[in-house]
């Protein structure tokens, strides 16, 4: 039996009266590219928040590589190798693209109580950062300040920052949110590159991408897992079709662009 890298059991979170996560149980083996789909308000981003440690669950456990990480803070989870990207771009706007990534490298290069040497010229940080930028195709934009980059480039940079922490698992929260067709195509290329090299949990609204890339898909509705399996199984699942896919297909053209 293959040991799971991420094992979620009975994860529950409520916001007031709203159940955002309702006893979610999910196993993601090493190397899997796993997608989570579900209608708006299904609790997908809440799940990422729970896994990354920003949100504390009411009950349930999260095990990462055999360690119970349910109670440990965000930065410690990052140290263990869980990296996330944000649905709403979350970067350092007054830093350059390379600076953004270098900071992520620095976070995993020992402690930062180093007060003297110029970190902006520290090749041990800059070189791996440049490499991560290259992986998402942003090398040419390395020295541009983030607030001067386009939305699509922000999304790419999100991935590069996450990658620069040398994660063992990526949590990607709608990397294609708000992208035009050209940018989307580029992002799919990036995701395709990641697939196989790193265990990934992807939240995405773009069904075409999800069904093309995912090894397995989990469908969330109202915080509950209603189905989990390979793309063919999910496509054939009647509950999924009723709850989600039919509706999605009907509105697919209307929702393009608003994330």
């Amino acid at each position, binding site marked *: 039996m293959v040991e799971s890298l991420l094992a979620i059991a009975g994860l529950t979170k409520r916001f007031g009266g709203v159940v955002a996560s309702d006893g979610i149980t999910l196993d993601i083996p090493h190397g899997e590219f796993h997608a989570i789909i579900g209608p708006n308000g299904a609790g997908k981003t809440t799940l990422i928040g729970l896994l*990354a440690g*920003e949100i504390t669950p009411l009950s349930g456990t999260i095990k990462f590589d055999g360690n119970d990480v349910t109670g440990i*803070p*965000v*930065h*410690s989870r*990052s*140290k263990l190798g869980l*990296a*996330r990207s*944000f649905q709403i771009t*979350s*970067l*350092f*706007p*007054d*830093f350059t693209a390379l*600076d953004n990534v270098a*900071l*992520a490298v*620095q*976070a*995993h290069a020992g402690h*930062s*109580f*180093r*007060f*003297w*040497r*110029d*970190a*902006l010229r*520290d090749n041990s*940080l800059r070189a791996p950062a440049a490499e991560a930028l290259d992986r998402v195709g942003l090398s040419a934009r390395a020295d541009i*300040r983030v*607030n001067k980059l386009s939305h699509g480039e922000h999304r790419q940079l999100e991935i590069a*920052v*996450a990658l*620069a*922490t040398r994660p063992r698992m990526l949590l990607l929260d709608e990397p294609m949110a708000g992208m035009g067709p050209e940018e989307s195509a580029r992002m799919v290329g990036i995701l395709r590159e990641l697939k196989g090299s790193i265990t990934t949990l992807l939240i995405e609204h773009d069904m075409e991408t999800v069904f093309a890339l995912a090894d397995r898909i989990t469908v969330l509705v109202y915080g509950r897992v209603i189905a989990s399996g390979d793309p063919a199984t999910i496509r054939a699942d009647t509950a999924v079709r009723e709850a989600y896919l039919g509706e999605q297909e009907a509105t697919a053209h209307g929702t393009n662009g608003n994330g």
Partner: protein
Amino acid sequence: MKSAITPRNAVAGGLLIVLALLPVYASWTGNVFAMTLFTRIIIMAIAAVSLDLIMGYGGMVSFGHAAYLGIGAYAVGILWKEGIASGFLQWPVAIGASALFALIVGALSLRTRGIYFIMITLAFAQMAYYAALGMDRYGGDDGMTIRQRSQFAGLLDLNNRTLFYYLCFAILIGSIFLVSRIVNSRFGLVIRGARSNERRMRAIGFPVFRYRLVCFVIAGALCGLAGALLANHTNFVSPAMMFWTRSGDLMVYVVLGGLGTPFGPLIGTATFLLLEEGLSRVTEYSGLFLGPGLLLVALYLRGGIEGLFGGARRG
């Protein structure tokens, strides 16, 4: 920003030359007052530099920074009163006591954000103020005259105005250099990153709190040193040094000069104190002119005076 001669560097360089040559001018003309005023500017600029480290670079808007000035000054005053005049002891105690106070204030206040952070830092400074008010042995409300400047075993005679001036000047230059090194170091990038986007800092693996706390302590310690200098400069300590309006003054110097810039705090302090001095000669309502001036800077000059020369650097 380091190599070329930009307007910004020219202004900073010009100001440094003026400061370096001021004692020559003062002794030439016998203008003791100018020496007193500029010594004060330099000391307050050191305090402003320390505030800029946390407020400008770190986004930690401390509204109680004058407390460290007061603690540093009281360390000198209290030790003198108790018969310890050695600067070798007084100054480390001033720095250490300020650092300790910063550690306590920071440990509590840095768990909060925004207005709460401002209020907690203010509350701690007011506590220090009232504590000083209550110390009858050390002058209480009236403050205390320190009849002897810190003694450095014959190495340095702080009664020598020129020597004291250059000592303060050297410490100012050292502080600016120190801070400019810190903010570009790994540590500094963590501090600046946390100002820019704290949530992302955590997500990429930084335990932000401990870095902020250390930064807060460094700033407190540096300001405590400025306080020790101030006590020696005025030969006097009083609770008024720690009153909340003094903390406000320090914030004004930094904002006026340019937040998060190496020379902004010095430029802001010099501008403000010189304007205040100049205006007070022609009118007793100098605040009536300074206030609107500050308003204009806040509204139209986001980078402060420093930002005027060479465009705004920050986003």
